[in-house]
């Protein structure tokens, strides 16, 4: 009887010990899996970091097509400088910023009037179209003022500003 109890006790001890070893083994396997996953994540993260540093110049180039944060005055002065280059009298009649639903940009809405010769006004329009900004000429009207013997232009320009 005693021997049977001893056998049962040793057998139970063995089984418990076996489960303990098995659990430890399983946990080690999970840990190995987690490590492999984490290493893969770190590799991807490393690749992305490299991508970020490699594309620094290109991303700055992309951002340069938007009016920078607090660069509205510079943008307006740039448009005025284009008008001077084209040889037209350009006057901004209204300027506003419209909040956009998209999270990275607001819309600058600028209305302006210009006077000059036909070719100068067209040169100004061409300069606006090739300006290194994402600009939309949303509305454009040009009329011949016979009395003043000049052409008058009214334009609605939409530009996009990066949000803070």
């Amino acid at each position, binding site marked *: 009887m005693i*021997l*049977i109890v*001893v*056998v049962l006790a*040793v*057998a139970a*001890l*063995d089984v418990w*010990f*076996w489960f*303990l*070893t098995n659990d*430890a*083994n399983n*946990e*080690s396997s999970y*840990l*190995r899996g*987690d*490590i492999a996953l*984490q*290493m893969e*994540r*770190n590799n991807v*993260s*490393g690749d*992305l*970091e490299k*991508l*970020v540093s490699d*594309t620094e110049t290109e*991303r700055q180039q*992309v*951002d340069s*097509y*938007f009016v920078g944060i607090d660069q509205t005055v510079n943008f307006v002065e740039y448009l005025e400088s284009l008008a001077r280059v084209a040889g037209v009298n350009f006057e901004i009649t209204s300027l506003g910023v419209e909040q956009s639903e*998209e999270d*990275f*940009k607001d819309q600058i809405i600028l209305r302006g009037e210009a006077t000059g010769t036909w070719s100068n006004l*067209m040169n100004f*329009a*061409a300069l606006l*179209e090739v300006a290194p900004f*994402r600009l*939309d*000429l*949303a*509305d*454009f*009207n*040009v*009329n*011949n003022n*016979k009395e003043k013997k000049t052409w008058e232009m009214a334009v609605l320009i939409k530009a*996009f500003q990066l949000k803070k």
Partner: protein
Amino acid sequence: MNLLPQKEKIENQKDYLCRFLAGLVGVIIVSLMIGGFALFPSYILIQARQTELKVELDSLNNSQSTSGSEEIYQLLETANRRVDFLSIHQGLSLTAAVKEISAYQPVGVIITSLAYHPQENASGRLVAVVSLKGVASNREVIVDFVKNLQTEPTFTGINVPVSSFAKDRDIEFSLTFVQNEE
């Protein structure tokens, strides 16, 4: 031939059975103990390896958190959205339209007003509605002007109000058409 009395025979059989069972239990106990001792080094090794793996995983987790991968994802996603936004830039050009109009303008037609208004058409494509006003020396030059504009594939829907043909000389005319993306 077994000459032992029956009672002694039974006792001998019991003794034999007891010895056999004791031996069997002994073998089982020894086997179990050997098995237990054999598992012990494996258990120790696995525990040690497990500790090493935990340390390695913690180290990997820390290195990942310091790299700020969330910020990187956001940075790249934002850049991607900006590129997408810029890449859908309209293919319409005011100066291209003016250039074409000037090229097709016959002698005898003077343009006095031009309006250019980009907008989305019914199918969601971006087009520009162009309205022209001018003075033509006679009806024929207006017709020639319209025919010339019709040869330009990006111009469609050219419309001249009939009233433009009321007079026969120094006619103040207007026309509208749509500039499509190339």
